[in-house]
């Protein structure tokens, strides 16, 4: 049993890393104070905090079980909404729009969740640890009321397990015309598109094979795997499919209602204001790039998309439209 005094010492701290010491999982903590997660990715906020000398020297190190003690003694905000996606499809824009409001805690691809999902441990343990970790992240430091997580794109493959851990959380699944995503990864490959980096994505494709095929085809296969993994959940009562083409208006017309949110006019204006900027590089203005990406697509990219992912994309569209 942890004393209230012990919990109080962690009030303005956040887990930033899970690591193993003597076959035991530990958590590395960083003091955040009132700093909110407003950057496009979790690690960017943490990296900025770690530039402060204090945070370079003083970091709590606790056994992971301590998060279980917090779970038992101090419940955080129940998840308001989860964002799943197949990468490069506007999910960061949605998370940034939500992060524009001070009443929201928005975690964008926190690596600690992925660290737990990738462990070779029984599912029951993973579920328990995920609940503990998410509850710790969901502790308000600024009187926030809502809590969101944007998962890594490859976490879509773990949907069944995540749903078991958080059966009541509404979620959205975001996707985009596959050839536009392939072009985006061709310009700047995401980690998930580098063969061998995310092992569960590479399943069924040998390492040699993945390097022999064009990168566009590998990308198409990975996108197909993500799309396939969501299909069994298409009838889930808590899911809403979102196409990139619906952004940003769909946030106001459908996503907020799906997450059971009713924001003030002023808050909606703040969210609308945030859409002016490039979600991943806020110093730049947002410019629609679907047409330029389509024009830039090589013949290999077009063929890979048509052959491997387009049928799934069409299916997703069919499901989405059937629910309007």
């Amino acid at each position, binding site marked *: 049993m942890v004393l209230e005094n012990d919990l109080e*010492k962690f009030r303005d701290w956040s887990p*930033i*890393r899970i*690591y193993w010491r003597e076959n035991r999982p530990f958590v*590395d903590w960083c*003091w955040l*104070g009132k700093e909110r997660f407003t950057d496009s990715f979790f690690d960017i906020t943490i990296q900025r905090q*770690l530039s*402060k*000398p*204090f945070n*370079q*020297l*003083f*970091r*709590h190190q606790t056994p992971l079980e301590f998060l279980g003690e917090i779970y038992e003694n101090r419940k955080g905000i129940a998840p308001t909404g989860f964002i799943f996606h197949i990468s490069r499809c506007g999910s960061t824009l949605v998370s940034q729009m939500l992060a524009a409001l001070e009443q929201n805690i928005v975690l964008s691809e926190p*690596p600690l969740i992925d660290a737990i999902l990738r462990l070779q441990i029984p599912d029951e343990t993973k579920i328990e640890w995920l609940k503990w970790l998410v509850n710790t992240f969901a502790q308000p430091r600024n009187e926030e009321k809502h809590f969101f997580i944007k998962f890594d794109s490859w976490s879509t493959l773990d949907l069944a397990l995540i749903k078991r851990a958080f059966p009541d959380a509404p979620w959205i699944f975001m996707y985009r015309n596959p050839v536009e995503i392939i072009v985006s990864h061709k310009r700047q490959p995401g980690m998930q598109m580098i063969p061998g980096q995310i092992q569960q994505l590479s399943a069924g494709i040998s390492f040699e094979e993945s390097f022999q095929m064009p990168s566009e085809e590998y990308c198409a296969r990975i996108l197909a795997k993500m799309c396939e993994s969501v299909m069994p959940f298409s009838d889930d009562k808590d899911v809403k499919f979102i196409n990139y083409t619906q952004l940003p208006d769909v946030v106001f017309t459908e996503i907020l209602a799906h997450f059971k949110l009713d924001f003030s006019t002023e808050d909606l204006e703040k969210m609308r204001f945030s859409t002016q900027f490039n979600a991943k590089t806020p110093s730049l203005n947002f410019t629609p790039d679907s047409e330029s990406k389509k024009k830039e697509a090589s013949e290999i990219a077009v063929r890979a998309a048509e052959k491997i992912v387009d049928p799934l994309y069409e299916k997703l569209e069919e499901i989405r439209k059937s629910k309007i």
Partner: protein
Amino acid sequence: MPKEDFEQFHQMVLQDISLQESLRVIEYRNDFIAAVVEKGKEKGFDFGAEDVEEKMNEYRRAWIERWF
């Protein structure tokens, strides 16, 4: 023993919110390290800047290597 003294002081700071607050406000690394050594002395511990830097480097390395 400076190393043991430093570890004890390190733990003391993690348990003492007012001590943390006094060190958090220092923005520059060298000033911060000097202040940690000074605060340690005030509390009766004997360690040097090199002990502080060693711990900072250890954490920095752990963060950089978190993917491996």
